[in-house]
Every structure is written in structure tokens, then in C-alpha cells.
């Protein structure tokens, strides 16, 4: 066996990894991959019979592989060298920009959501306004790889515009600052600057005079949702930014929150989720000094960056997240005295689901 040194080298490598795996204490969490790592499963006869025990051991030995972070990096290098630009539905563009693969977005979903919104407003005699936030691929198109599998967002927006009143946001975003400051590279959401463009668009539609931008706060080290799906170890972080106007109270259900940002979430990777303490079925923003009375908003997470700017104009904003709200939307509109139902939604959410159309109490 002494001359078999190729055999011994490979066997030695495997044995060394095995011994280290058994001796070293298991890690709980991988910061690089931002997830919990599997632990050794507890043995049970039942688990052995149904295969869950051996499956658990397999995941354990993969997750707790010694030098796992090095292997993760090596894998990322291999992926990059193989010329692949699409991973887990995320497209790598120029200069560290990541984009969502969107060729599966459905115009039918957009139409259904937009027409439901219009039908809701018609039933209660209000005016519907839809602010549909395009994706970074539509605004920063110079960073997108050629011929990438993307949706035609102008066409989807036109479809929404034919069903309800669509606010003209896409062109405004393209013109503002060349567009690049409007979005994060590693996340699907918009920056404080992007939300400001949205705010100006809403003001123009609702006849409000924009109040100059309040103080903006920044937090470096933001790795967004695209990064989480397709992490590369050498990828640069974004800087999370948001506007923080004074004198606004956030109420989630019965609870009044301290401030507009969740400080615990700001510590983590996904800092955008700190805005308005995350997504909740129903929130209220109150501002005693505001000139106008009330506003009803149907929203998804994109609105979280914009709501506090609008709250400077209204004494009370009620915001319903159509994805989580289980109450009856018709009952809400019945006691609503404002004239406009404003819907702030990412185009991706409009096109990939029917959350507005499926809300309880929607007229059909």
C-alpha cells in the first residue's frame, strides 16, 4: 500500500474531513449563507424506518462539512467560471447588479388585480389610483445582460393602465438621476431616492404639494433578497437608506411602535425589512399636525419606504397589506371618508399573484 500514494492522498483527504467533522463542535449558523445549519438528528426507530434519520444524517454531513465556507466559495468560483449568469432565478448583471428573472410574470394577473381595485373603488364611489413600482431591470436596463429572460414591464404597466388609473412612475424613475440610485443592487426594493420619486408622483396625482425631503438615514452592510437567493462571497453590500420624518406615530393593531424602524432588524442582513417594523396585515400612521384628514392605502412592502413621506400630509393613513389582510375590504371602505383609494404595489407582486383580486369583500 505504500506506493499507492494517489489512493492514500484522496483517502487521507476524505478521512481528515470525516475526523474533523466528528471532533469539531457543530456550527449553528452560516453567516456567509445566512441560514441555520442542520444538526445531527436524534436517533429513533421510527425515524430509521421512514428514512428521516438517514436523510437527516446526510444533511448534517453536508451542512457541517469542515471548511464549509471555503467549499461554498469554491462552488461560487466554479459557477462564475462556468459562465452562468442565472442562479435560483436571479440574473447577475454588470457592476454587481442583480435582477429577478421575470419572463414568467403574467399580464393576466396584472389585469385582474388592477380591475379588482377599480371595481372596489367604483362600488363605494371613490377614485382608485395605482402606483405600480417597476423592477430595477426596467429602470437600470443598461446593467442587464443582453437578451435576458425578462418581462416587458412597459406592456404590463400599460395593461394595468387600461384597467384603472395608473400613476406614471416608470419614466420619472428612469429620468431621475439616471435611475441607478433608485434601486438597490442586491434587493428588489427601491431606495430612499426611489421612494422619493414615487412620493412626487403620488403628490402630483392627489394634488399635494411635496414637502421637502426630511433627514435620510443610511445603514451600510445591507444584503438584499437577490443576494440571499444567489450569494457570492465577494459581492459588495448595499447601503440601506430611508427617510425619517418627525412627528409620525405607527400603530400595528393595538400596539403603538417606538419609531418607524425596527432596530433589531437593522442589525441583520435584510435591513429593508426594518421599515415600518415589517409587513403587517393592517397598520395606521397618525400625524396630528397634518392638513388632510385620512387616506386608505392597499399596499405591499414597496409602500413601506414611501408611507412615512405621505403621512406628513394626512392625519391618519390606514394601510392594508392585501397579501396578509384577512378582514373584509368592503367593510373598511364603507367607513372610509376620503376620496381616493391609493394602491402602492410592486409590479412583481401584481404580476406574480392575485392578492388584490382575492381579497375578502372584493366586488365581482
Amino acid at each position: 500500500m505504500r506506493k499507492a500514494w494517489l489512493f492514500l492522498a484522496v483517502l487521507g483527504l476524505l478521512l481528515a474531513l470525516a475526523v474533523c467533522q466528528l471532533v469539531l463542535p457543530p456550527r449553528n449558523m452560516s453567516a456567509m449563507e445566512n441560514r441555520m445549519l442542520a444538526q445531527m438528528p436524534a436517533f429513533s426507530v421510527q425515524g430509521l424506518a421512514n428514512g428521516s434519520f438517514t436523510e437527516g444524517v446526510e444533511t448534517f454531513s453536508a451542512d457541517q462539512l469542515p471548511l464549509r465556507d471555503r467549499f461554498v466559495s469554491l462552488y461560487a468560483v466554479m459557477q462564475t467560471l462556468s459562465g452562468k449568469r442565472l442562479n435560483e432565478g436571479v440574473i447577475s448583471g454588470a457592476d454587481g447588479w442583480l435582477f429577478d428573472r421575470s419572463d414568467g410574470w403574467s399580464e393576466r394577473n396584472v389585469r385582474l388585480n388592477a380591475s379588482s381595485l377599480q371595481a372596489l373603488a367604483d362600488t363605494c364611489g371613490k377614485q382608485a389610483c395605482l402606483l405600480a413600482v417597476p423592477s430595477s431591470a426596467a429602470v437600470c436596463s443598461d446593467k442587464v445582460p443582453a437578451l435576458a429572460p425578462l418581462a416587458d414591464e412597459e406592456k404590463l404597466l400599460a395593461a394595468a393602465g387600461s384597467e384603472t388609473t395608473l400613476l406614471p412612475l416608470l419614466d420619472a424613475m428612469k429620468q431621475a438621476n439616471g435611475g441607478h440610485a433608485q434601486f438597490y443592487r442586491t434587493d428588489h426594493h427601491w431606495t430612499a431616492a426611489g421612494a422619493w420619486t414615487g412620493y412626487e408622483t403620488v403628490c402630483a396625482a392627489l394634488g399635494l404639494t411635496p414637502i421637502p425631503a426630511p433627514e435620510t438615514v443610511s445603514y451600510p452592510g445591507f444584503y438584499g433578497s437577490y443576494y440571499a437567493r444567489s450569494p457570492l462571497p465577494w459581492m459588495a453590500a448595499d447601503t440601506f437608506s430611508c427617510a425619517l420624518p418627525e412627528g409620525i406615530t405607527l400603530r400595528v393593531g393595538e400596539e403603538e411602535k417606538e419609531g418607524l424602524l425596527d432596530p433589531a432588524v437593522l442589525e441583520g442582513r435584510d435591513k429593508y425589512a426594518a421599515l415600518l417594523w415589517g409587513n403587517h396585515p393592517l397598520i395606521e400612521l397618525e400625524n396630528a399636525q397634518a392638513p388632510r384628514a385620512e387616506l386608505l392605502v392597499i399596499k405591499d412592502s414597496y409602500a413601506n419606504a414611501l408611507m412615512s413621506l405621505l403621512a406628513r400630509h394626512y392625519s391618519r393613513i390606514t394601510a392594508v397589506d392585501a397579501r396578509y389582510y384577512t378582514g373584509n375590504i368592503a367593510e373598511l371602505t364603507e367607513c372610509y371618508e376620503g376620496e381616493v383609494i391609493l394602491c402602492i404595489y410592486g409590479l412583481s407582486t401584481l404580476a406574480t399573484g392575485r392578492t388584490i383580486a382575492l381579497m375578502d369583500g372584493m366586488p365581482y
Partner: protein
Amino acid sequence: MLFSSLTFLLYFLPAVVLIHYFLPERWQNGFLLAASLLFYAWGDVQQVPLFVVMLTAGWALGRLIERSRSRAARRWLLAAGLVLDLGTLFFYKYTGFFLETIGLDTGFSMALPLGISFFAFQAAGYLIDVYRDETPAEKSLVAFGTFLFLFPQLIAGPIMRYSDLSGALHRRRRPDAHALNTGMAYFTAGLAAKVLLANPMGAAYETLRAVPGDMLCAWLSLGSYTLQIYFDFMGYSVMAVGLGRMLGFEFRHNFHDPYSARSIKDFWRRWHITLSGWFRDYVYIPLGGSRRGRLRTVLNLLCVWCLTGLWHGADWTFVLWGLWYFVLLCAENAMPSLPKKLPAALARLLTMLCVMLGWALFVSDGLGDFLLYLGDLFSFRFASTGLFWLREYAILFAVGIAVCIPAVTGFVKRQLGKHSVLCAAAVLATMLLCLAWLANSTYNPFLYFRF
């Protein structure tokens, strides 16, 4: 347990190879049988009783056939053995399909024991060999079990004959340095074919198949499946050869550059060689082969190819896939000189085209799905994103195609053979890349669950 899992690579492989190496002869077979049972039970503990039944029955019947003097008794014993081996295979694999075909849609389904198509064939082949006096019956139950369930070839072949292994089963197996080195190199190469080529090709197939309305993507998806199934199957076979060498056995190679074939006949001489050999020796030749006139030859071929199709899965698409080769081979028999007359490149291209269309049928979920796929392949509609996908997988395809060309692999093998340090470094680096891939990617499909 799969070869391409970290528990196998880190624990099972080093432990079994090392312990086996140092054991005295009388313990080696027993140890390998126990290890093989553990290997199997790791994935599917509930099928172990089936193992024990097939093992003892096969062993006892072999002994009885050898001892019986009367021809009739031998015949009955062989029949009993074949009913047991092939009946078990039929029961697990084809009962649901059979009931459905005769109009009894009972929703019957059984968990198919992994690798049953391989070891049932191996057991049946053994009994036929004993019956024909081509080989003596194995006296030791443990040695017979080791032959039947040897873990390197247990779940994806190659299908071995007893006479290939009987020598090694009865001597002290202590592989020399050359066998250990080449064994480990083969194993790593097979693992790389599975993990670094077949798995990404499989992921590419799934992505590309889902791209709507583009003929280029349809052909790219078919190309990626063509490469995936070859690298996957070839990878398992090469890993088996490597593991066998490290344990002192010499397995047959199951693939011999099939995608460089110049005709369909040539393709089947290079693809899954041990299965074709099994059908040739135990079905085609006993039926009379090609010596009983043209009509009988055609009927014999029809029988063999229906069975070959069915062996790959209990579905009509697999039968049709077998019939596709029956038709192609009949056509080739009618024009035996055609492949030689054509320029080599054209002959290879035409062969590949036929093989790929066969895979389109093979991969489809039923005839409707196949027709849809065929429609995509010949839609003559092109979407603008087609070129994005071509670029996305260009390097993967380039590497994959290069590995299918004998001149390329031959050159690499020669270079590595000359420089042993370079070879060791390449094998070690390849193993590291495989580990990185396995630690990261959750995409590690097993294609033979229907076999």
C-alpha cells in the same frame, strides 16, 4: 446510500476500503456482504427482508440445480428460480402498469426496491449459467450474497456474471498499489461525471425545457438531457469499476464512448454493454438469434427490444423507446453497408440524431407529453432569449461534448498516465471540486428510481 453523498464519501468509502484491505480472507466476503446490506438499508431499510429471501432462495436453487441428475428436475428448479427472480421484479415494477393496461385502474403502486432490476437480472443470469453447466454453483451462502449484492454495482450496475467474479470471491483480495491508484482515479472520475457534469446538465435540462416557444431552447434541452443521462449512468458505472478495484474485483466497463458511434448497432455495442449482453445471451440467442430465417430474426429482435424498453421503466413510453430502436436496427439490417458508405462525420451525426430523438421519448411523461416536446423541437419558432440561454450553458456544453469525444479523453488519459504527480494532483483537485459541489447544491437527482 448514494455514491454522490457526503456520508458515503467521508465515512463509508474510507472505512470499508481500509478495513477490507486488512481483513484475513475468511472475513472479507462476510464483511463486504454486511457492508453492502448497510449500504442498501441506509436508503431503504424496509426492503432488507426481500434481500434475504432472494439471497437464500437463489443460493439454494443453484446448489439444487447442480446436484440434480434428471433433466426435468433441473428444468423445474430453474423455472422456479426464474419465477422467483423475475416474478419479484414483475411484482414490484410492473403490477400497477399491468393492471392499468388490462383496464383495472386500481391505483396500485409499490415502492420499487432500489436496484431490483439489476440484481434480479444478475440472480436470474446466475441460475441460467448453472443450469447450462457454464459455471459451478456457489457453495458458500456468504460468497453468493457478496456476488449478488456487492454494493459498488448494487443500484446502477454493471450487471455482472458470476463467472466474472467467482475467482476474486475465493481468494485473498489485497489490491496492489496500481489497482488502488487506478481504482481511486476511476472512482473520482466517475464521481466528477455525476456531480460536475450530470447534475448541472440535469438542472440545465429542467430550466431549458420550461422556456416556452423557442426551438433553439428545445434542442438545447434535449442536448442537455442526452448528456445528463450519459454522464449520470456512465458516472455510476465508472465509480463501480473504481470501487471494485479498490476492493480487489475487476468489473466490466458498461460504456465505451457511446456518443461517438457510427451506427445504431455500434451505439448499442457501446451503451450499457452489460444489459445488452444479458439480453443477447439469455433472450436473443436462446430464441434462435439470427439463425432461423429472416422473419424469425425480426421477431426475436422485436421481443428483445420490447423487453429492453420495459426494463427501463413500466410505461408505454419505454416500450415505444425500445420499439424505436427495433425499427432503426431493422432498417440498418436492411441496408448493412450504409453506415460505412457515409462520411464518418455524417454517420455519427445521424446516429446522434436518432439517439437524441429516442431520449425525447424516454424523458417524456406519456405519449402526449412526447408529442408536445416533438412539436417544440420542430416548431421553427425562435424567441429572442434563445441566445441568452445558449451563452448561459455554452461552457458547460463545450466541456460535456469534449468528454464524449474519444480523442480528447484518450489524450487526457495518456498525459495523466505519463505524469503520476500531475495525475494525483488532478484527482485530488477533482475530488475537492466534487465536495464543493455536493456541499452546496441541493440538486442531486437519482435517475434510476424507475429502473
